[in-house]
């Protein structure tokens, strides 16, 4: 259980975090979502005790990270954005070192390492030099490192960044497996990834929490808005004007106003699928052929926008 209250972090005049509070329950996967530079890594660094907050508290299973750092850190396994790997050690040597560092009793070390390596799927490379491993394996070794000492809480900062799709699927599966008996915070800037693995999502933007929600609620909230992209042959201005008249369309942005026009259409979800039919007939009637017509996945920025504006309402 992690309790975070009013976390503030200043770097000189820059305010990286402006008061963040949330809790992570036992055996819950919390997705930590935000664009680059939003303060994800800073928050995680503060939770793990790497940095101290300017103000605010972090409690790990009841232990304050600043007041009882040893007890708190014992319960955390941390995979930073750059995995802390010694490239001149073999996987086995490295994990043994981590066992020593985290105080795993000598008798249990061998078994413990064997369990972890088979769990993260690196048992085939334990004798190899970390520097010689592929990026995916390195990332797994990084996760293995976080698992050493069986901490009940795992904090994984962008665990899938830079991996190929196969590797990403592997890691996601691994996190799901681990979530059975770990509380996990996973950060990412990819929405779909978080949606897939997290129970709950914290969205952070400009050092503030934009939303804390279950994945279900979040998708529902997101589904209030749908953006459509349409390319067509015709005058963009006229098209936009006509489109705005269709009920259910809240906004139209012209992306390209050449001979081949392109507009982005914002609709309110209540309108349902009928809106597309309405657009089609309107365009057909006007004699503007539709070249491409598809719905747009919302970008993170849009989500924040929508969430923050949604909150405002």
């Amino acid at each position: 259980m992690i309790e975070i209250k009013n976390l503030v972090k200043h770097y000189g005049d820059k305010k990286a975090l402006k008061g963040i509070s949330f809790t992570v329950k036992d055996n819950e996967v919390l997705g930590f979502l935000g664009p680059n530079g939003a303060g994800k890594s800073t928050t995680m660094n503060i939770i793990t005790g790497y940095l101290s907050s300017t103000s605010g508290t972090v409690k790990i299973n009841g232990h304050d990270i600043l007041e009882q750092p040893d007890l708190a850190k014992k319960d955390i396994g941390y995979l930073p954005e750059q995995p802390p790997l010694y490239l001149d050690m073999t996987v086995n040597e490295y994990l043994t070192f981590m066992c020593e560092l985290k105080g795993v009793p000598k008798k249990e070390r061998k078994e413990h390492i064997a369990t972890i390596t088979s769990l993260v799927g690196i048992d085939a490379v334990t004798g190899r030099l970390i520097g010689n491993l592929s990026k995916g394996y390195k990332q797994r070794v990084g996760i293995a490192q976080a698992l050493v000492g069986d901490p009940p809480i795992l904090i994984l900062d962008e665990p899938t960044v830079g991996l190929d799709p196969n590797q990403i699927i592997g890691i996601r599966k691994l996190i799901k497996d681990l979530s059975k008996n770990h509380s996990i915070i996973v950060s990412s800037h990819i929405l779909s990834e978080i949606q897939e693995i997290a129970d709950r999502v914290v969205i952070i933007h400009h050092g503030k929490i934009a939303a804390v929600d279950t994945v279900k609620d979040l998708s529902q909230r997101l589904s209030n808005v749908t953006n459509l992209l349409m390319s067509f042959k015709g005058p963009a201005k006229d098209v936009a004007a006509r489109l705005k008249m269709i009920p259910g369309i809240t906004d139209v942005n012209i992306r390209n106003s050449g001979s081949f026009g392109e507009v982005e259409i914002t609709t309110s979800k209540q309108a349902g699928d009928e809106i597309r039919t309405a657009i089609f007939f309107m365009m057909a009637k006007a004699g503007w052929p539709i070249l491409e017509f598809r719905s747009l996945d919302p970008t993170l920025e849009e989500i924040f926008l929508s969430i923050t504006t949604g909150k405002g309402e």
Partner: protein
Amino acid sequence: MFAIFKREFLSYFRTPVGYVALAIFTFISGFNFYTLFSEGTVSISDEINSLRSLFIIIVPIITMGSFAEDRKRGTEVLYYTSPIDLFSVVVGKFFSAMALCFVMFINVFIHMIVVSACGGRVGIGAWGSVLVFFFMAALFISIGIFASVISDNQIISAIVAFLIILLNNLFSVIGEYIGFSVSTIMSYMGINATARSNAKTAVANAISWFDPFEKTYEFRNGIFSASALIYCVSFAIFFLYLSFRILEKKRWSQK
């Protein structure tokens, strides 16, 4: 602390660095020993004392990477987020460098055995020099670790360590010079000769008080003074603590 010590110490021997350093030390000490041996008179303390001048090269090489390297690799996060004290990390690294020095020093122990076997004398002065060697190694290694902490760049760390150790080598000389210049300045101010010479001595003494070489000088004769060892140890502790505080600063610094 032991985990850090073990990793750091073994890492010297996982890469060629440790072996090469050992080979160089073996060769230089061997040359020293061979020269004395061929003359038929071997004073181990002379050998050790001349080996002390290698500190200025060896210590920066050993210590320059100790923290700078971690920062580069991103492994330093382990020290901050593991349930261990940062100070014990500093101490672990310190002892691993000391242990490497000890391994190098095994050469000299072998020389001692050879000397004894050849009917020479390994007197108390030799043991005094051994003691001084390790206490001064402790002082200089702690300085090297401090240099490694204050800079992200290994080369800068090495140069800083080199300069501080050089300064240590030159305290007496510097003291003399500063004392001399003080007395020169005073002579322009029209102060009489006795006062000038007193001031010169006082300044020179004050500066050379810091000279660890002078402090431990008598050990080679078998006169052991606790204050010289305490000087080395206390300043070593001070530098290690300072290093620890600088590392810790990264946590709370707002910069």
